[in-house]
């Protein structure tokens, strides 16, 4: 086909609605709220929630993943534009990672060696890992579907950031239920679940967000 003919064919097509970041974020939020609401509804919030959120180290269990989730959603939506660069926008996620690592190391040096294993293992790591990872999948699926309308120049990166966002949000919600407040536990397992969501997102993004 001649290029001029292609152009006249394209021109004849109707325009498309613009990409709406807010609508995309909202759809993902709903996709997270449903499984999270169901989980918290059936398993219950921790009984001492108010007191727990007043203790900084315990509050960090919700706050750090929430900040990671919120900034990563914004970054993933930003990356839906082809001209977008990551650059400094990764700073918030990196700071959250550093804070979590610092917290983990701080408790690691304070804990006697023989108690380290038990503190890291906790007693609910399987539930924690699976719940957070599974709860991150619905918003991840919705987010990927919406990002397919976008045009990311780095599909795997977009998927990974989206996965981290969903993992972070899911972890922040799960923390309202979980009573294991030692950073040696929650940084390890929340972190692993969030990274797993990021990895799944990277793989799916690489497959689904190409254009």
């Amino acid at each position, binding site marked *: *086909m*001649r*290029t*001029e003919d*292609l*152009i*006249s064919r*394209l*021109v*004849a*097509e*109707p*325009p*498309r*609605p*613009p*990409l709406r970041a807010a609508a995309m974020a909202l759809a993902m939020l709903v996709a997270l709220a449903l499984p999270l609401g169901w989980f918290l509804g059936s398993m219950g919030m921790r009984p001492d929630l108010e007191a727990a959120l007043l203790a900084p180290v315990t509050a960090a269990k919700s706050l750090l993943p929430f900040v990671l989730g919120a900034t990563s959603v914004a970054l993933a939506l930003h990356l*839906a*534009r*082809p*001209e977008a660069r990551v650059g400094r926008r990764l700073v918030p996620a990196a700071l959250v990672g550093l804070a979590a690592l610092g917290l983990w190391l701080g408790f690691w040096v304070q804990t006697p060696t023989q108690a380290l294993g038990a503190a890291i293992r906790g007693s609910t790591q399987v539930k924690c890992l699976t719940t957070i990872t599974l709860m991150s999948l619905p918003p991840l699926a919705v987010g990927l579907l919406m990002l397919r*309308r*976008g*045009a990311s*120049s780095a599909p795997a990166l977009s998927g990974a950031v989206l996965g981290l966002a969903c993992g972070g949000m899911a972890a922040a919600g799960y923390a309202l239920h979980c009573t294991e407040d030692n950073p040696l536990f929650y940084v390890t397992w929340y972190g692993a679940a969030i990274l797993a969501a990021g990895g799944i997102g990277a793989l799916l993004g690489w497959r689904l967000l190409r*254009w």
Partner: protein
Amino acid sequence: MRDSESEWSVLMRAAIGGDGRAYARLLTEITPVLRGIVRSRGRTLPPDRHEDIVQDVLLAIHEKRHTWRPDSPLKPWLYAVTRHKVVDAFRRRGASVHLPIEDFTEFLESEPGPDPLARRDTDRLLAGIDDRSAAIVRAVAIEGEETGAVGARLSMTEGAVRVALHRAMKKLARLGAGSGGDGPGRGRDE
């Protein structure tokens, strides 16, 4: 150089608002720039593939135009789409290409005009006439060689070359008129 940035942004905004004429003008103005980019980067690929890639890019611009934010400059967006599709097209065709991250402007400034003949269509048309005539058309009408030089190469008189060229062009015009409806048969989803 005129300010194509604001001009193109205006056209694209109008296009997004449903102004087909503005859209056609925009795409038509972009096309030679895309050709320039593909041609300058695509020495590892046969030139008849270049127009395919240009069309790939145009299609991507079309399909992703809603990802441009009308309050931001158009060129960075346009260049990002172009870069993405050109790199991708070359990769899929087994050739490598290097496109710097941000120098659309450089390409814009150095741009040659549009290709007078789409190479692939020409090739198909030329296949419909005898080899010698095709060689003459190629040499004179496309490469721009002198008829005398072509005659010397093909051991014909210059006059005979002119006559053969004239006949071939007439025949090609007939062939071209008959092959208008090639439709969507470009096989783009390989």
